[in-house]
C-alpha cells in the first residue's frame, strides 16, 4: 500500500484502501466459514442452491454427496485466509502507520513489526508455561498440594523416570556415536552424497511412520506360524525362539530406542560431516607426518577438533529424546513397563483427567531442559558482546 502511494498519488489512493477493505471482508467471511465445523459443506451447499441444484445441496447438508469438494473448497479458503490475512494485516497497519507524523511513526512502527510475534509467543509459550507451573501445585478440586510431585516416587513413576533416563543416554549416545562414525567413514568414499542420503532419509519420516515401519520389523507370530517380521524370521532361521519385542520388558524400551536412533543418526551425521569437512588440511597432514594411523587420526585429531559440533548435536538430540512421546504412544502405549514421561503426561491429561499431575510432569521436562536454555542464553550473550 505504502509502496504504491509513494509512486502514484492519484488513483491508487482510492483503489488500494477499497481493495484492502474487500480483502478484509473476505477474510472475516472466510474465518466464519472456518470456525463453523461444517463450514465447507454448508458453503458448497449454498453455492449449489444458488446454481439451482437443491438436491445436491441437501445431500451436502446431510453429510453426503460431494464431501471431497467441500474439503477442497475449505482448503482453498484456509490457505487464502491464513496467508492472505496475515499479509493484509501487516500491509494495512504498516501503511496506516506510515501516514503518521515521523516521530510517532518511528515510535509505533517497530511494534507493528514485532507485535504479532510477541502476542503469539506470550499466548502460546510464556503464559501457558507459567500457568502449567502454577497448576502443578493444585489438585483437581483447586486446593494447594504437593502430591503431584510426591506421586513421582510411586513405583510405576520411578520406572517411567528410569526409562526416560535410559532413553536419554542410549538414544542420544547411540545416534551421536553412529552419526560420528558414519560421517567419518562416508567422508572417505566416492559418491559420499548418495550414501549419506540413505542414512539421512528417515529424518523426513514421522515418528509414527517410523513406528509402523519398525513394528513390522519387530512383528511376532506365535510358535508354529510363519514369522513375517524380518528380525524374528532371522532368529527362528538360526534356530532361536521368536521374541515378542514390544511386550518383553526391559527389551521393549531398547527396541523402541532403536527406532529413534534410526531416525536421528542422519541428523547427527549431517552436522558432524559438515564439521569434519571444516577441519583444516594442515592439521590432518601434520598428524599423518607424526605417524598417526587412520583410526588415531580420526579419534585423537578430528574428534577433539569438532568437539563444539558434537556438543551441539548431543544437546539437540537429547532435547528431542527427553520429550519422546509418539514412539511409545503408538507401539505399546507404555503398558509393558516401557512408559516415558511425555506419554504418561498425555494419559494423565486425557485418560485420568488429572491436570495437576500432568502439569507436574510437564514442569519436570521443563526443569530438565533448563541447563540447555542457560547455555543457549550464555552463548547468545557472548555473541552479542563479540559482535
Amino acid at each position, binding site marked *: 500500500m*505504502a*509502496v504504491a502511494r*509513494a509512486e502514484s498519488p492519484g488513483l491508487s489512493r482510492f483503489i488500494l484502501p477499497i481493495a484492502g477493505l474487500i480483502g478484509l471482508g473476505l477474510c472475516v467471511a472466510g474465518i466464519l466459514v*472456518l*470456525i463453523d465445523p461444517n463450514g465447507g459443506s454448508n458453503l458448497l451447499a449454498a453455492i449449489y442452491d444458488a446454481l439451482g441444484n437443491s438436491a445436491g445441496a441437501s445431500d451436502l447438508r446431510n453429510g453426503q454427496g460431494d464431501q*471431497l469438494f467441500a*474439503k477442497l473448497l475449505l482448503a482453498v479458503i*484456509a490457505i487464502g485466509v*491464513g*496467508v492472505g490475512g496475515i499479509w493484509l494485516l501487516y*500491509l494495512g497497519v504498516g501503511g496506516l502507520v506510515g501516514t503518521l507524523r515521523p516521530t510517532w511513526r518511528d515510535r509505533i512502527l*517497530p511494534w507493528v*513489526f*514485532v507485535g504479532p*510475534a*510477541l502476542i*503469539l*509467543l506470550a499466548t*502460546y509459550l510464556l*503464559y501457558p*508455561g507459567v*500457568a502449567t507451573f502454577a*497448576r502443578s501445585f493444585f489438585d483437581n478440586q483447586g486446593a494447594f498440594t504437593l502430591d503431584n510431585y510426591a506421586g513421582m516416587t510411586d513405583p510405576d513413576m520411578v520406572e517411567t523416570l528410569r526409562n526416560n533416563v535410559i532413553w536419554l543416554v542410549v538414544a542420544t549416545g547411540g545416534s551421536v556415536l553412529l552419526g560420528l562414525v558414519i560421517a567419518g*567413514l*562416508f*567422508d*572417505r568414499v566416492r559418491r559420499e552424497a548418495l*550414501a549419506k542420503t*540413505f542414512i539421512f*532419509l528417515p529424518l*523426513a*519420516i*514421522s515418528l*509414527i*511412520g517410523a513406528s509402523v*515401519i*519398525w*513394528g*513390522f520389523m519387530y512383528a511376532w507370530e506365535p510358535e508354529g506360524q*510363519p514369522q*513375517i517380521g*524380518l528380525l524374528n524370521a532371522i532368529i527362528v532361521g538360526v534356530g532361536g525362539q521368536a521374541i515378542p519385542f514390544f511386550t518383553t520388558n526391559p527389551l521393549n524400551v531398547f527396541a523402541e530406542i532403536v527406532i529413534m536412533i534410526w531416525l536421528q543418526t542422519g541428523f547427527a551425521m*549431517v*552436522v558432524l560431516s559438515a*564439521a569434519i*569437512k*571444516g577441519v583444516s*588440511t594442515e592439521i*590432518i*597432514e601434520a598428524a599423518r607426518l607424526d605417524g598417526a594411523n587412520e583410526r588415531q587420526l580420526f579419534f585423537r585429531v578430528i574428534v577433539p577438533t569438532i568437539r*563444539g559440533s558434537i556438543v551441539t548435536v548431543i544437546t539437540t538430540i537429547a532435547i528431542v529424546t527427553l*520429550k519422546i*512421546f509418539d514412539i511409545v*504412544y503408538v507401539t505399546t502405549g507404555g503398558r509393558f513397563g516401557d512408559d516415558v514421561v511425555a506419554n504418561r503426561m*498425555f494419559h494423565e491429561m486425557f485418560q485420568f483427567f488429572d491436570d495437576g499431575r500432568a502439569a507436574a510432569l510437564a514442569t519436570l*521436562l*521443563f526443569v530438565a*531442559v533448563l541447563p540447555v536454555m542457560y547455555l*543457549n*542464553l550464555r552463548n547468545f550473550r557472548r555473541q552479542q558482546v563479540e559482535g
Partner: protein
Amino acid sequence: MTAPAQPAVGHVTRVAAWRPALLRSLPLRLTVIVICVLWTIPTLGLLVTSVRNPELISSSGWWTSLLNPLAPDQWTLSNYQEVITSGGMGPAFLNSVIVTVPSTVIPITIAAFAAYAFAWIPFRGRGILFTIVVGLLVVPIQMSLIPILSLYSGASLYGTFIGIWLAHTGFGLPLAIFLLYNFMSQLPRDLFESAAIDGASHLQTFIKLVLPLSIPALGAFAIFQFLWVWNDLLVALTLLGPSTDLRVMPTALYALLGSRGGQWQLLTAGAFVTMVLPLLVFLVLQRAFVRGILAGSVKG
C-alpha cells in the same frame, strides 16, 4: 547453538590425502554399502509389503516376494485403494495439507517481520525481548498443552483449523525468529543506509530488499516447519480432538493402528501414504534442508 558449517577449504586436496588406494579401500567401501543397505531395509520392507497381495502377507515374509518377483498374483495396488478410501487416508491427506500450508506460511511471515525489526529497527526493550525469544527456543511443547487446551475450549477454537494453525505458529516462532534474525543481521549495513537515503520506508525496505535476499533462510525454515507440522501427532491429538472429519495423516495412521492393527497390508500402505509428500520434498530440496539443519539445530 549454531553449528560451525564452513564449506570445506581446500576440500579436493584433502580428500585426495584421505582416500586410500582403490584395493586397500575395498573393506571400507563394503562397510559403507552394508550400512546403507541396513538403513534402508526397514523402509524397503514397508514398501514391498504395501504392494503385496494381502493373502501372501500373513503367510510369508516380504523378502520371499523379492526373491521371486515374477511369481503370479503377487503384486497389487488394491491396498492403497482400500486405505485411501475406506481407511480414510484420502480425506486425511487433504486435512494435512489444510493444516500444514498455513501453519508453515503464517509463522514465516510473522517471524520475518519480527526478525527484521530485531535486526534493523532500534527500539526500546529490543535486547531483552530477543533474549526471551532465545530462551523460549527449548521450552518443551508439553508446558503449553494444558492451558492452551482450556483456553481453546473457552474460545471454541478446539477442533478447528484456525486453532491448530495458531498453535503451530506459536510453537514454531522462536526457532523461526532466531534463524531469520541470524540471517538478516548478517546482511550488509550499506544496503540499509542506501535504501534510507533513497527515502524507502522500513516497510518498503523489508518487502523489496530484505525478503528477496532472505529466500535461502526462509526456504530452510519452511522445509523444517513443513516436516514438523506434517509429521506432528501430539498437537493434532491434543487440539484437533478425536473427530474423524479432522484427522490428519499421523492421527489417521494412528486410528488405522487401533482399528486394523493386525492388517499389515493396510498399515504399510497407510504409512507410506503419510510419508510420500515429506520424502518428495526432502529429496527435491535436500540441500536447503541440510542448510536449515546446520543453521539452527535446536527445536523446542
